[in-house]
């Protein structure tokens, strides 16, 4: 079995890695956003697993439609649907935050209609300043206390430091793999990369690091991909469906970099290992490459996007936006003007959480590829 195949085993919601963890009598918590500090959960010897809902059938969310309403994003509707079907029964609880209106109300609807033994929501400030940093540190301290009380564990500074080291190691390894994608012939597709990141969010992190190191070594020795038509950057929110990227890559658009929740915005920034661990966690999570929920950080996100476009020699950008997502619509509205000014071709795709309408998408991506080829 290749490393990639081993990692792929961790992608389904309930997977062997989680089962083994649970068989050891240990707890698993589901979380919803990149602003949730996994390190604190991991330091409590609890496995943090990113809540996903890829097994949800598109358009088959009666519970989600009724309670989240049909005009909420399909990710939240799918999550409520699966929670109601007990498909998250491997979780001992959920941790959320006020990342957006729909996610925070998903948390409420789950508590009321499909509760878990443990729920917690972290208040993440909507902007970054010295004042909000202090507030956020207090917020995550309360979360730490809640874990200690509810799961009868002690989260020492040493455990936190160890968790930070483990998670930083992942970030460094992922970044090394991303750096290989800067090459003219990148050794890995965007589809494979998304699978790796998804796996990392669904298995014990030290074991993920072990496999990731092996994967990195393999990739370093691998012959790169040369038969692509254009180098693509994907920008958007929660996308964990590799089939979506596969549609693009099957048409010759090699995804070489991204600015996504399950991508650079998740792992790009490290936690300072020399500081008090709770302070360092708070600083990193509030100051990391921001999601559009963070007011006033648009210039930094633009700079980040432009830097990646340049470093990864991107030919064109594909914006992917889940239908009914307020934050990303506003963000893309501003970003596309920036790309126009810079003369960088882009394509904007609206999508549902679970891939649907692939035919229409193929047509649009194919046309985009032809534009990119004509530009060369």
């Amino acid at each position, binding site marked *: 079995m290749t490393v990639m195949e081993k990692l792929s085993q961790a992608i389904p919601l309930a997977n062997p890695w989680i089962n083994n963890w649970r068989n050891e009598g240990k707890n698993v918590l589901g979380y919803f956003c990149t602003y949730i500090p996994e390190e604190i959960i991991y330091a409590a010897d609890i496995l943090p697993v990113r809540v996903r809902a890829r097994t949800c059938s598109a358009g088959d969310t009666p519970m989600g439609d*009724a*309670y*989240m*309403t049909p*005009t*909420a994003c399909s990710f939240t509707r799918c999550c409520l649907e699966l929670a109601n079907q007990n498909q998250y029964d491997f979780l001992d609880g959920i941790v959320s935050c*006020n990342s*957006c*209106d*729909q996610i*925070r*109300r*998903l*948390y*409420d*609807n789950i*508590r*009321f*209609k499909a509760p878990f033994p443990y729920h917690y*929501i972290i*208040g*993440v*400030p*909507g*902007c970054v*300043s010295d*004042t*909000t940093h202090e*507030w956020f540190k*207090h*917020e995550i301290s*309360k979360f730490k206390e809640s874990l200690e009380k509810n799961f009868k564990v002690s989260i020492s500074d040493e455990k936190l430091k160890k968790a930070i080291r483990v998670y930083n190691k992942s970030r460094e390894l992922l970044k090394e793999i991303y750096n290989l994608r800067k090459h003219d012939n990148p050794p890995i597709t965007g589809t494979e990369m998304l699978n790796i990141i998804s796996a990392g969010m669904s298995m014990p992190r030290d074991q993920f690091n072990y496999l990731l190191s092996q994967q990195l070594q393999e990739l370093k020795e691998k012959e790169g991909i040369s038969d692509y038509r254009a180098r693509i950057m994907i920008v958007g929110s929660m996308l964990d469906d590799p089939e979506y990227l596969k549609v693009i890559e099957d048409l010759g658009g090699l995804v070489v970099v991204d600015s996504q929740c399950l991508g650079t915005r998740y792992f790009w920034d490290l936690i300072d290992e020399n500081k008090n661990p709770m302070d360092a966690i708070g600083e990193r999570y509030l100051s990391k490459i921001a999601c*559009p*929920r963070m*007011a*006033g950080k*648009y210039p930094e996100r633009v700079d980040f996007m432009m830097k990646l476009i340049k470093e990864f020699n991107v030919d064109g950008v594909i914006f992917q936006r889940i*239908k*009914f*997502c*307020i*934050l990303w*619509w*506003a*963000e893309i*509205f*501003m970003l596309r003007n920036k790309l126009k000014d810079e003369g960088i071709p882009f394509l904007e795709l609206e999508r549902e959480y679970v891939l649907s309408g692939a035919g229409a998408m193929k047509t649009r991506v194919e046309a985009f590829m032809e534009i990119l080829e004509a530009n060369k």
Partner: protein
Amino acid sequence: MVNEFIQTADFKFIKNNLSILVQSLLKLLQSCEIMDKELLDKYTKLGRGNWGKDLAIWKTMYKGFLGMAKSERGFLNPGKSEELNPFIEMLLNAFLEIPKARKEGIPVIMHPFNYEPELFFAMNLAPLMQEILSVGLAFVHMNEPYIDYINNIGYGDNPTICNAQRPLISMAMQKAAPIPDLLFYLSTPCNSLAASYQVFQGLTGIPSYNIDVPYWAYEEASEYYDEKTMQYMINQSKNFITWLENNTKHKFEEQKFQQTMEITNEAREYTLEFNELLKAVPCPMPSITGFGVFLTMVARGGSPEAVKATKWFRDTAAENVKKGIGAVPDEKIRIAWPYTHVFFDINLLNWIEQTFNAVVVMDLLGHYKVLPQDTSTIENCFKSLALGTLDASMVGKCRGPLEYYLNYLIDYVKDYKIDCVIMPMHFACKHVYTMARIASEAIREETGIPTLIFGVDSYDSREVTSEELKSKISDFLTHIVL
């Protein structure tokens, strides 16, 4: 930057649509009866002159409100007064203040509907509440050309981004939006608001500032806030003041701030009494009145005019209670409306009153719940300022977990002897719409009364029409409530 923006204005679109607006207003005027000619003449004269290119719509809205002020009944004249009442006069002055500030070199600061302007008054700045535009234009269906334009440009759509703010972006792209000197907004109550204000900032380059309203109460025993939350808000307010000082030549003066907060709290006293008076059966004030109180506080809170207006609302309600006068004759149904009004249909509430002898006792914005506070020290004044944000209409009930909204609503239903709940859910309002189903279940379980939930775009008459709305409400009131 701002001047450059104004100078490049293309007025074709604006002119075309202003003519539609003027025609609508003329129709309205024809059905009106002038109450106090001398006073109205005064305001007609005050509105003359060149207000500036970017204030063309603002000026037309002023004329529209002036016309509506002459109306014998309706939104702006809830007490059916024989004179131009203090509320209307206050609103007219709010419009006039912007061109006046321009002339006098006073910075204009745009702010959203969930932040009261007392700090701005304390610092001698001119506040401009942005949603006056979208609500005011909705009355005469004038949002719709702007909504069409922004749909075509590709900034959101109806169910995704709220049309309380999208017309502003549309106006800005057509150089028709009022261009303030400064922009301010909050992280709550919704993503739409924060996102659209940032887009507006991006289009205009206006200096902007944002305050985070915390999501959660720390202590379970604390209903809405604790000392840490309060201090967080106070610290942010102080940072904001520093920013205001740096971006204007205006200095913060403690004494002026204290005076302003005293004025604010006087108005809060009146609103508190007004809210209590609405418990009377029959309800002493028409359905729209609460919204007038809200508008008073959020557009002019901290001004002496707001004190006059809230006192007038309180006095009118008290007099009606004393005389046993109800807003509708033979009151049969008392409705809670825990969301915003359907702004595009100015007559909907009148229709409910007249057709069903029903009165909307509360709406989410109109039930203004900020309590008066001690203002004897500067720190207490800051606390009072913070409460104005933490407990602001919609923010207070929606910034946290669902229970805040739920408990508030159930208590209201019990305290105000409510017979049914109507929730006209704005499609793009993700944070409230996603609570509606659970709220209706809890209300039924706790109080036994029914709830009607339906989707609507409160700012656009074409998504769900007045006829469709009336049909749903009629079926509900006739077959389920009565």
